[in-house]
């Protein structure tokens, strides 16, 4: 991978070298607030995918980590042609330090945080009521200040454009999903899987809600045997959510996660609030696993509604929907097969590396820094 963590080389002085330097690769500085942990966090996965795709397009990429210190200086020495800043907090902090670098700044927004915080408040009374207001102000600053902002869904890009007039905001693919072989339906009783850690509030709320409100009926009536929760969950939460048939696996390596997925009948995304594209949903579908989800778990995939579920997905509302959907997948092998194939085909078509590369290339064109 053509990722540079080095400072800019000493400027070349000879005539030939000067000509060569005009043909140097496009340099993109990608800034994050902390070290990249793509196995733990979908946002980091999106940044990792961005870095990989930029490199595949021939860019020289500097990945900067604010928590390591001196990020503005590192960016300046790299002498980038454009700077990508991930997440609103970092953009807001870093922008003032980069005003001297006269290159386009791209805000890699991930989602509309203030919308998610507003929705979260309905389920989490402990959340400070001012949080959404403050975040909206910060995001407004980011969207208006950036030369270009990128969101992962067209709906959010449209909403942000309306909310922050004058800002240049586009939607582009955030994830390049690996091509996974489609898995066969596992034999035996229904097993469900959820991928995601408790650090993300929608995951924490959604899994707790599912385990408390839906799982007891599914398990007691024999509709489903096991729910595997994969990701980092603190011990206190695991203890409070312990129920027969519920297994907390903790963070898993890719092979271990693949094994859990292979043994599962469906992936679930029981999120009651949220924003942005959910990589967990894409991940289930990419392996041919049918998905049971709330509308929040499939945001950005398609406009969905009654009878218009995204390919491979059954969108569920209340507990009765969930129970009926799990029962159907357990009993109807044909329905399972149809969903599995549709979801797998959808990811292969819409979230491939090629689609991601095209999207990133269009962003570079919009910034005027095409390799």
């Amino acid at each position, binding site marked *: 991978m053509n990722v540079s963590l080095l400072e800019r080389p000493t400027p070349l002085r000879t005539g030939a070298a000067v000509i060569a330097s005009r043909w140097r690769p496009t340099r993109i500085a990608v800034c994050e607030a902390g070290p990249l942990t793509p196995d733990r966090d979908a946002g980091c996965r999106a940044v990792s995918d961005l870095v990989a795709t930029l490199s595949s397009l021939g860019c020289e990429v500097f990945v900067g980590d604010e928590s390591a210190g001196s990020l503005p200086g590192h960016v300046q020495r790299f002498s980038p042609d454009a700077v990508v800043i991930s997440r609103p907090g970092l953009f807001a902090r870093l922008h003032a330090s980069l005003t001297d670098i006269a290159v386009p700044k791209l805000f890699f927004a991930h989602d509309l945080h203030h919308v998610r915080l507003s929705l979260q408040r309905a389920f989490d009374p402990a959340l400070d009521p001012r949080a959404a207001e403050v975040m909206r*102000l910060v995001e407004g600053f980011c969207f208006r200040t950036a030369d270009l902002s990128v969101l992962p869904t067209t709906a959010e890009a449209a909403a942000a454009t309306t909310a922050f007039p004058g800002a240049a905001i586009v939607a582009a693919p955030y994830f390049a999903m690996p091509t996974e072989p489609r898995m066969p339906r596992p034999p035996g009783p229904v097993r469900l899987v959820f991928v995601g850690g408790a650090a993300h509030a929608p995951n924490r709320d959604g899994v707790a809600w599912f385990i408390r409100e839906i799982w007891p009926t599914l398990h007691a009536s024999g509709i489903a045997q096991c729910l595997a929760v994969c990701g980092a969950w603190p011990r206190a939460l695991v203890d409070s959510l312990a129920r027969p048939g519920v297994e907390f696996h903790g963070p898993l390596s890719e092979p271990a996660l693949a094994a859990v997925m292979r043994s599962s009948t469906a992936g679930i995304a029981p999120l009651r609030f949220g924003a942005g594209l959910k990589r967990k949903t894409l991940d289930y579908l990419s392996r041919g696993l049918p998905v049971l989800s709330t509308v929040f778990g499939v945001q950005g995939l398609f406009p969905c509604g009654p009878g218009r579920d995204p390919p491979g997905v059954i969108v569920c509302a209340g507990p009765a929907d969930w129970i009926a959907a799990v029962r159907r997948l357990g009993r109807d092998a044909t329905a399972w097969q149809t969903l599995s194939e549709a979801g797998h085909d959808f990811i292969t078509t819409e979230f491939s590396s090629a689609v991601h590369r095209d999207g990133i290339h269009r962003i570079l064109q919009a910034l005027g820094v095409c390799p």
Partner: protein
Amino acid sequence: MSIEQRHRINTPSVIYDRAVGQTVVINLLTGHYFRLDEASSMLWERLETAPTAAALMASCTNPDDLAARLPAILNELQDHGLVAAVTDGTIPTDQPPASWTFAGFTLESFTDLEDILGLDPIHEADPTAGWPQARAA
């Protein structure tokens, strides 16, 4: 404080938004968040043009009331990093502030949203090793 000293809002590290009856101000570098009520917002708005203290008082219908409080107010705003003395002569405009009446100044300061501004709320800190790993104090 010299009455010819200009003070400006400390952009770009300070952002603010005027809403009905209040102004919300955020220092992006500290993550601190402030509220100004309607009366206090009057003074804040006039700092947008980086006026001198003399110009602020000249535009005020009750300059004696303002003069008694202005040095302390500007000090408080500077202490929070919200305004800065203009030292390089750069000013947004030479227009005098619009006429106004000083009706008091209260800066409500909140530091309890620092985490929301400082870290990324989409990926709150994992208790063990998850994202984002907050800097050690």
